[in-house]
């Protein structure tokens, strides 16, 4: 078991290296291959009408004249050993893990990531609780009342939920609940939990609901399908034949089995969300990792893109591992060796 975990973690590290190299290549190697020079790369980071001397200075400062593997090596080295940054009138030490300095804001990336993680974490955990509860309960009720008006209504609503994108439901939600009715906070009003829990809750309420709505819809459908399949299993008939009350049959025997495959999907969804709920954060202007990633890509800010990608990849890998371990606990047929 322990060796299994270690092996998986080592594989994760290798994967993270591959991901980082790929992102690096997309931002540096590809433009160089199609003809960009260090100077053309540097022009993205200087003002308009900058002189060739300025462009040259910046290309040097950002290390664009070095071969790509040297640049990549410098980045990797920073993660393990830290690095130095020249901010003009002196140098600043960026301790390990140093994901480099942003070309645009000239701030170290790592503190930014740590700063934004709680936002995404708050969003993801709150939404996950909501959708796990509402999605699963709706799915169960639908499955048990299959074909009823309730079932059809729930499935119609959830079809809408699955098919409507966040930037639609989110903006409509803001318009109606925030600007027209004034029940929820407007976009961009995030307050850290540690500062004011009430404001934190108020600001996240609508994002939670909007994000959870989409996932609930998906989970309701999955739960319903899983429940229907499970309720047709032989062991459910056995449970009834033992004289178990209907509720015990549905919950202890039916739901338990129906939820197991959902656990995998949940773990992956949650892991992905921790890497940044891009659309939700964008719509509600939440300063989380997803918004950070979008802004970084828009601004061509490679160190930020690399940092946030690493973070997201790490979450997905870890979520995967946890799901696998958890699966072994839930389903005794799965043996981890």
């Amino acid at each position, binding site marked *: 078991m322990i060796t299994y975990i270690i092996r998986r973690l080592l594989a994760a590290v290798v994967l993270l290296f591959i991901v980082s190299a790929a992102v690096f290549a997309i931002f540096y190697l590809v433009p160089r291959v199609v003809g960009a020079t260090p100077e053309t790369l540097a022009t993205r980071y200087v003002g308009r*009408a900058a002189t060739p001397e300025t462009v040259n200075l910046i290309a040097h400062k950002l290390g664009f004249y070095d071969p790509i593997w040297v640049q990549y090596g410098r980045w990797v080295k920073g993660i393990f050993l830290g690095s130095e940054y020249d901010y003009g009138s002196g140098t600043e030490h960026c301790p390990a893990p140093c994901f480099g300095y942003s070309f645009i804001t000239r701030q170290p990336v790592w503190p930014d990531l740590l700063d934004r993680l709680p936002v995404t974490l708050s969003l993801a955990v709150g939404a996950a609780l909501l959708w796990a509860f509402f999605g699963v309960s709706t799915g169960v009720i639908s499955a048990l009342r299959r074909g009823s008006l309730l079932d059809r209504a729930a499935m119609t609503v959830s079809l809408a939920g699955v098919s409507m994108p966040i930037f639609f439901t989110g903006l409509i939600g803001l318009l109606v609940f925030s600007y027209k009715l004034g029940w929820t906070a407007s976009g*961009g009003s995030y307050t850290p939990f540690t500062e004011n829990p009430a404001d934190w809750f108020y600001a996240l309420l609508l994002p939670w609901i909007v994000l959870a709505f989409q996932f609930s819809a998906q989970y309701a459908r999955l739960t319903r399908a899983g429940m229907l399949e499970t309720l047709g299993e032989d062991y459910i008939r056995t449970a009834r034949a033992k004289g178990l009350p209907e509720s015990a049959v549905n919950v202890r025997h039916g739901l338990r089995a129906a939820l197991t495959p959902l656990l995998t999907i949940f773990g992956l969804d949650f892991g992905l969300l921790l890497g940044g709920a891009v659309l939700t954060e964008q719509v509600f202007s939440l300063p989380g990792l997803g918004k950070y990633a979008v802004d970084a890509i828009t601004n061509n800010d490679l160190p930020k893109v690399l940092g946030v990608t690493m973070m997201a990849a790490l979450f997905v890998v870890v979520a995967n591992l946890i799901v696998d371990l958890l699966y072994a606990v839930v389903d005794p047929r799965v043996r981890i060796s």
Partner: protein
Amino acid sequence: MIQRTRVLVAATAALALGLTAACGGGKDDSSSGSSAKAEFNAALDKVFNPSEKKGGTIRLANSGDWDTLDPGETYYGYSWDFLRLYGRSLLTFKASPGAAGNELTPDLAEGLGETNDNGKTWTYKLRKGVKFEDGTEVKSADVKYAVLRSIDKATFPNGPAYFEQFLNLPAGYKGPYKSKGVNTDQAISTPDDSTIVFHLKQAFGGFDYMAALPQTVPVPQAKDTAAKYKEHVVSTGPYMFDQNNLGKNFSLKRNPNWSAETDPFRKALPDRFEVSLNVNADDIDNRLLSGDLDIDVVGTGVQPATLGRVVGDPTAKAGTDNPNQSRLWYTSIVGTVKPFDNIDCRKAVQYAADRTGYQTAYGGPLAGGDIASTVMPPTIPGYQKFDLYPAGPDNTGDVAKAKEALAACGQPNGFSTNIAYRAERPKEKATAESLQQSLARVGIKLTLKPFPQGDYFSQYAGNPPYVKANNLGLVLNGWGADWNDGFGYLSQIVDSRVIRETGGSSNASVRDPDVDKLLDAAVGNTDAKAREAQWGAIDKKVMEDAFILPGVYAKALLIRPKKLTNVYVNPAYNMYDYVALGVA
């Protein structure tokens, strides 16, 4: 170039003076009336909702990050407008609507610059009693230091580069961080604590505009942390930083060491300013319309989705203003690509182009702007209205004249060429398609060539060898003034000497030695009025050369803040004057 308009500083004391003189008025803000009725453009040329009431908080939002709060590096018009709340440059633009807002007025200095040698040396006297937020008095050395540090382009690569271009700096000078202890008196001298003298390499008649750049906002050397200074800028204005969370939000509170006695124009009505960064652009519009937010600080106008809602609703439209942007959307006609080496072929494009189609592609008169026929927009002093290539009564092009020009060019049946545009910009794509249609009427066949905007000028449309090799005969382009004056607007787009073989210049087509000579003559002229006439002549010359097909004088549709007082568009920035605002 980033889509947000960079610096639209306006100016031209001279023109403003001329205008007011013509009206027979004094130097008072006689042109600026006041208004309280909410109607379309109610805050364009007059003060909307005037009030002297103090207190309250103004809430602003920016759909992106602030370019930088450091006065030495900031290069966006909205930032220059906002910066006056916490920083005082030597000169600035008058806090006034209408033409008076284009006037330069002393801020940190006591008066405008003085020159005794026809514009090679400029002297400014500082006001007494102006203090930093910590209570220490501002000295001329602090201004000198601020200007010199902005020259360090390794540290501040995004800032304007005018000072290093004009100041008589020691050879190889790299700013106070790298070139420690170098005597720089040959560039800037400070004979006493309240006098600062700028020594230029060449005469520059419009130096007062440079004295109005935020780079002259004083920086105390002891508190300077170079690239990190933006984390805590030391204020000289009525407000200072309270909180500053880079990339997320910041707030300003009152600066106890600012005194209204040293400041002739800042009313400093509200108690606080709160700015959110990286806010969803559509959300900003919704919040402005609901009154949940006061100002979209970037000031470039509403999103396309909002535009439809506002235009269709008279009540909503009455809550908007539609100022000029001191920006021209145009098409470069590249003379190095055959057959555009022949002027008549360039003229054929001028005649054949559908100007109305160009305007429609940019969103029509409200969101796009007015149909253009010159290089300089009307907001630039020296602008003269003329149209060398009339495009017919409905502005859709003169096909007959275009065919004549083609015949004169020796291409009576037309020819084929390519048109470059930025792939990320739907408006440029629409423009390219419109031109494709209208030019096809005379046999000029265009092939659309989209390029990524990040490398548009450096690698493709602004890279002369690439342009020539790939027959990019037409290049979609656009330019906004650094400040509202001929030099601030024209120098980067019509001077052939800024074109570099390695790429990166915004001037994609104008190569005329006569134009270069005219520019040099105008720059050295200290007679403002004569200088303006020279800018106008340059505009005409470029149009005669037919190197530029003007498209649209850009306009923006701004949502007027509902709960604020003293709202007006300052023509120097083409957006609301952030220094004048108060809370109702």
